[in-house]
Each structure stands twice: as C-alpha cells, then as structure tokens.
C-alpha cells in the first residue's frame, strides 16, 4: 500500500468556481473505466484551498509531489495515463515560477510557498475536507485527548496564555486572558462560540479553514469548553458559505459517531456538543454582541460593553467568542506547547497570520506567514509583485475597518501593533494590493458605501456620521467637491470614531482618514482641478489614445462595449470622447499603454 498514489483536487470555492468539481467527477469516471490493478487505483480526495487560487483548479499528486495548475477536464485522461499509471510529469501543466524563471514540479518548491509558515492552514489542501479519518491520521483530536486526560482546566488556560495567542478576528485581544474571564465567571451554564461570520470583503481565510479543515475548529472549541466549563458550542457561519456549512455539519456528525463530541468524550466524563447557526447576512454580526443577539433569534444589533460576553453573553451566560482562525491554532498549541508557538512571530504578536492576498497582484490567494514579516516580502516574494507590471501604489489591510499603507512603509514588520500605529489594522486579514489605476478617493468612498449599508442604525454617530461622510466623498468623486471638504471629513471622522457604540462605527472612518493622510494630493486633484489622476471617477476622467504610442493592433476596438474607438489596422486609432463611457476596458486591454488619462 505504500506505493499507493493520492490525487488531491482542490475543491475550495475559488477552484470550484473554475470547475474543479467537474475535474473530480472526470477523475472518478476515468479511473473506474480503466480496470486498473488495485495497486494503481489512486485515492482521489476533495480538499480545501491549497492557497494559490488564481492558478486553479489545482491538482496535486502524492507521493511523487507533482502539482498541476489550471487543470481542465480535457487534461484528465493524460494525467491518469502519464502521472498515475506511469510516473511521468506533464511539463505543460506545471507552474512557471517567475522568480525562479523555471517550471516547478511541486507546490512546496514554489516561491509563493517558501516564506510561508502554515499553522492554521496546516491541513488545507492536504486532507480530504470531508473525512474525519484523514484528520485523525494527521494527529487530529490528540490535543483534545491530551487536555482531557492529562491537564486541568487551569493548565489549559495557562498554556494558551503563555503561547501569546491573540484573537485572529481583528482586534488581537489575548485569547488566554479572555478564557480566564469566562472560567472565573459564576454560572453552571457557559457557551463557546465560533465566529464564522466573515463579512469583510476581500477576506476568505475563515471560509477556507471551515471548508478545508472543519475538525480543527471543533477540536479548538471543545478544548476551550473544557477549560472554561462549557458544554455547548455554536458555530455562526454566513449562509452564503454553503460549502462551509455543509462540511461543518458533517464534521459535527462524524465527531459524534467517533465519540469526540457528545457525552463522556474519551471516557473523561466531559461533555461537549456543537451546532451550526446560519448567519443572516449582516456585516455587523461579526461584532460579538450583535452575533450573540443573532443566535438568540433577534436582529443583530450591538449592545454596549461591559458587560463583556465572557461574563454575560449568550442568553446572559458567560460566553467565549473566538474567530475561526483562532480556533484552528488552539489544538496545535496544545500539542506542541506554548514555548514552541511563542518562538514564532514578533515580540508582541506570536504565531502566524493568514492573509487573503488579492487585488492587483500576480499571485492571488491565501498565504500564512509568521507575524513580523515585512510587507515587502509578502507582496514581492510571495505575491510575485504587482500584476501587469504596473506601479505599486498601496496595500490595504483591515478591510472596512483598516487603512492603506503606501510604498514608503513597505518595510514595516506586520503585526497587530505596527498596523494600528500606521492608522490601519490587522482586521481579519484581507490584504488588497492597489496599483496606480485605483483612485484612492473612490476607494475610500467604496468602503464607506459598504459601511453605510451595513451600519445597523442603532447609534447616531455611526448611522448619520457615515452617511454624511459618504455624501461628501460622493460629491468629490462626481466633481462637486469644494474647498474645506477634506477638513470636514477629518472632523466628522474623528467624531464617529470617538462616539460610536461598537467596533463597526469606531473604525469606520479609518479608510477615509488613512487615505487622506497618505494620498491627500489625490483628494486635492479631485476638488481643485476636477480631475481623477487614476482615471476611475467617470465625471472627472477623459480618455484619449496617444497617437505616438498606438500601434493600431485593434484590441481596444474589440474591447469597447459602445463602439467609441475607430481606426485603420496598423494606424493610430482614435477614441470618440462623446461616445466614451469611461469604463477603461480599452485601457486594460492595450498592450502598449497608449490609452491615457487627460
């Protein structure tokens, strides 16, 4: 059996969108039709996200460690023929690593992987996402068994405290300390909640963990249950995350059947159960108190803290809420010890962080890196630099609660505290790379529009303040900006930050304030010159074709949805400004950068 081959097919959402389920089906069909020797029949496993979503669907073959990218159903027979029956590598399907200037056989040798360190994502892509046996084979549930058989609840909390683990949902509150509060709180009934309401646009690590490695989340929650004296867990998961809900429900049922959830787990007398609650689609429900109200069957509006959920949470009982990624770290810390974990990362931020590296970057996907790594290393070494060879402008972290970090700060070591010092924050880990064709005014407006729709409306500073700021920004983007607008934005922003009830409002002005601080000249160009330098704001943009640069290839003509471009082949083309709707399709398509912004 040792020679048995395994095919891992990424069935995370990114790869599924690219058709990986069809490949999975085609693999099964191709194998069953072949009449192979039993020895050759490979295990075909659906897995969670491998990381490099942009190159999907990804197919990995073990033990020879071959990774194929952009696999199509038409490639399946050849893969079976050459890489399963024989041991050949199909060069055509390998990843071309620009940094190494060569094709690379195994994903572990990609430059994309070299600087990564996987703890939370350790199993994603390497185990079947619906198999408890795979998880157990990799050492799963050993952490739970260890705490139940050999540790007191106090010792468990002590390990988590010493490890320095901080909440991965954004705030970075020390996890062990939070658990202490709940452990000390009076009451027979306590609850553990997993916050899987990942609402931050541009972040999808929690989804990938729940889809690809659901048992690690359950194990982490059960360990916490033992430590604080809770017997019931809830997983609040966005209803849009259908696959995550499905896999998590199956994981709960499987854990029950193995006696790893339910009564008397591992003959210890400890009981713990878990239940999935589907979220209703409200960003504010990522906030602890809102999430609790949502589970209780109410509208997800926040309530003031204190009382903190650790003392009075779900149905008034002491409750621990941690984020998906935090839970995924817990079993590893228990197994490998606090000292091992505390040795990774920076002084005040221990361990690793998963980022969703997206936007104008060559390698889009999920990456997990040690805390304290420099932004430059993430963007250039792992991400392969800015796409289409355009100029780097900024990187946005922390989603709607964060801010933009400009090129001058690229050598910043990334941790909770350094990002806050720069007016941004860690947030859940979205990392959006922006090039010179993104307008920073419009980008700030984008986040505010999102937040104005998601503000629950309970407190006035958030509800009305965001609305006013959005109106000013919309005016600026549409050419009605006036002198004094920037100062007014700063003033209202400070008020909203200081006076809002919950985290949504307290951080809502960040994207605007940080963009003003770092890119004030762009705001001024909009207001004073009525011009959008990035060519995004349509009222303030005029496109033209530079006749000295245009080679007359005609690509722009095909890309234009309104027929505004004309010209003879191999002659400079002309853009009709009257017809142009400024969608920039031609500018994106042009290979010689001849479409310019006036």
């Amino acid at each position, binding site marked *: 059996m040792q020679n048995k081959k395994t095919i891992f097919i990424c069935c995370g*959402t*990114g790869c*599924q*969108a*690219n058709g990986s389920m069809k490949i999975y089906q085609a693999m099964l069909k191709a194998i069953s039709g072949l009449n192979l020797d039993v020895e050759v029949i490979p295990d075909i496993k659906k897995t969670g996200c491998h990381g*490099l*979503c*942009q*190159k*999907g669907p990804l197919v990995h073959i073990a033990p020879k460690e071959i990774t194929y990218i952009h696999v199509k159903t038409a490639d399946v027979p050849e893969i079976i023929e050459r890489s399963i029956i024989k041991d050949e590598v199909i060069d055509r399907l390998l990843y071309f690593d620009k940094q190494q200037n060569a094709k690379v056989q195994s994903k572990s040798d990609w430059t994309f992987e070299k600087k990564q360190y996987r703890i939370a994502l350790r199993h994603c892509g390497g185990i079947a996402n619906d198999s408890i046996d795979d998880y157990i084979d990799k050492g799963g549930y050993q952490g739970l068994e260890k705490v139940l058989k050999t540790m007191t609840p106090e010792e468990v909390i002590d390990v988590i405290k010493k490890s320095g683990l901080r909440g991965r949902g954004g705030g970075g509150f020390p996890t062990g300390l939070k658990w202490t509060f709940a452990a000390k709180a009076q009451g027979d009934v306590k609850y553990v909640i997993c916050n899987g309401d990942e*609402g*931050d*646009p*541009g*972040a*999808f690590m929690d*989804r*990938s963990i729940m889809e690809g490695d659901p048992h690690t989340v359950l194990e982490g929650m059960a360990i916490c249950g033992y430590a604080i004296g809770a017997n019931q867990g809830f997983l609040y998961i966005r*209803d*849009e*995350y259908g696959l995550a809900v499905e896999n998590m429900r199956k994981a709960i049922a499987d854990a029950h059947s193995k006696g790893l959830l339910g009564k008397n787990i591992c003959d210890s007398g400890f009981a713990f159960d878990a239940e999935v*609650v*589907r979220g*209703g*689609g*409200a*960003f504010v429900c990522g906030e602890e108190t809102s999430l609790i109200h*949502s*589970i*209780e*069957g*109410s*509208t*997800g509006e926040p309530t003031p803290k204190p009382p903190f959920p650790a003392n009075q949470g779900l149905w008034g009982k002491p409750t621990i809420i941690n984020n998906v990624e935090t839970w995924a770290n817990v079993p590893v810390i228990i197994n490998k010890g606090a000292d091992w974990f505390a040795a990774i990362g920076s002084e005040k931020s221990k361990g690793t962080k998963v980022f*969703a590296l*997206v*936007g*104008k970057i060559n390698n*889009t*996907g999920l990456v997990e890196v040690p805390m304290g790594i420099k932004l430059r290393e993430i963007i250039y070494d792992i991400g392969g630099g800015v796409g289409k060879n355009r100029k780097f402008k900024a990187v*946005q972290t922390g*989603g709607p609660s964060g801010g933009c970090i400009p090129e001058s700060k690229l050598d910043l070591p990334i941790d909770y505290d350094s990002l806050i010092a720069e007016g941004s924050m860690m947030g859940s880990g*979205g990392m*959006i790379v*922006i090039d010179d064709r*993104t307008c920073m005014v419009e*980008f700030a407006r*984008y986040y505010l529009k*999102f937040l104005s729709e998601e503000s*629950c409306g309970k407190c006035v500073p958030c509800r009305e303040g965001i609305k006013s700021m959005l109106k000013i920004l919309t005016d600026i983007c549409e050419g009605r900006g006036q002198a004094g607008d920037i100062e007014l934005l700063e003033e209202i922003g400070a008020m909203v930050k200081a006076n809002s009830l919950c985290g949504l409002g307290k951080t809502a002005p960040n994207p605007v304030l940080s963009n003003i601080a770092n890119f004030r000249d762009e705001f001024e160009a909009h207001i004073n010159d009525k011009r959008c330098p990035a060519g995004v704001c349509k009222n303030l943009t005029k496109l033209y074709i530079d006749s000295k640069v245009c080679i007359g290839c005609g690509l722009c003509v*095909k*890309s*234009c*949805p309104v027929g505004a471009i004309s010209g003879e082949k191999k002659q400079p083309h002309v853009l009709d400004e009257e017809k142009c*709707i400024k*969608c*920039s*399709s031609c500018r*994106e398509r042009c290979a010689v950068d001849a479409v310019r912004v006036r």
Partner: protein
Amino acid sequence: MSESLKIRTESLEIAQKYQPKRRYLLAILQDIQKHYNYLPAEAMETVARYLSVPLVKVYGMATFYKAFSLTPKGKYIIKVCDGTACHIKGSVNLLDEVKMILGIEPGQTTDDGLFSLETVACIGACGLAPVAVINDEYHGNLTPASLRQILEQYQGGMKDAK
C-alpha cells in the same frame, strides 16, 4: 386550496421542522426564503404565531438581514460581486453594463420576471476577480463585453435555470 392558504400550510410545515423557540426564527425564515425566493406575508404571519413572537419582530428580522426579500425574485439572480478585489478590478463597470442591458437597479427584478440584479460584498473568489454569479454558476475575469455575451445567452433561453 387558495394560494394564501397553501402558503400558510407550507410555511407551517417548514417551521415545524424546528422546535417552537425564538432562537429558530432566523433559521425558519431562511428556509422559507429558500423555498419561495422571498418571504410571503402569510408565511411571516404563520411563523410569528408558531413561535409566539410579535409579527413586528418577524418583520424586523426580514428587513434587517440581507438574506431576505419581501418581493419575489427573478428566475435568474445575477449577483455582481463588489468585494474589494472585484471593485478595484472594475466591478462597477460590470454593474453599469447589466443596468444598461436590463434597465434595472440592484435589488430590482425585470418586468418579465426573468432577472433579478444584486450586488454582493465578496463571494471569496477573489482570484478570478471581477466575478459575477448567475444562480449558482460563477463567471470570472469578466469584462463588460464578455458579461454582455453571457447575458445574451440567458436572454435567448440558451441556458436552463438550475
């Protein structure tokens, strides 16, 4: 059986899969939304009675959470992703194109009941940005021109509803 009575009977059946406790209100409404593609008034009344919750609370839930709609949705639901990655890769241009072709705004349904238009804040397929989802089918790396072609296929009845 009148349409109204039918909805009451069906929605009670859906609700009875859960115990009559307030905490199941969200889940019951989600199941009803999935069944009808919206929340009929009769269904909300039925649920309120089943859980002994004031109707206004049910209505509050229905209007607070994005998952719910009070009006029927179209045969094809076009979700243009406006997550951050899609946004900076031109999702607004996609949205403008759909608005122009169908003559509806986000949240609306065409008169023939064929299309509903929605925007979503990130569906987690950022590697394929900009993305639109029509019913369950993902379309990635879109341009206004390519999205127009896809829509024309649906309009021409070349695609069957899933």
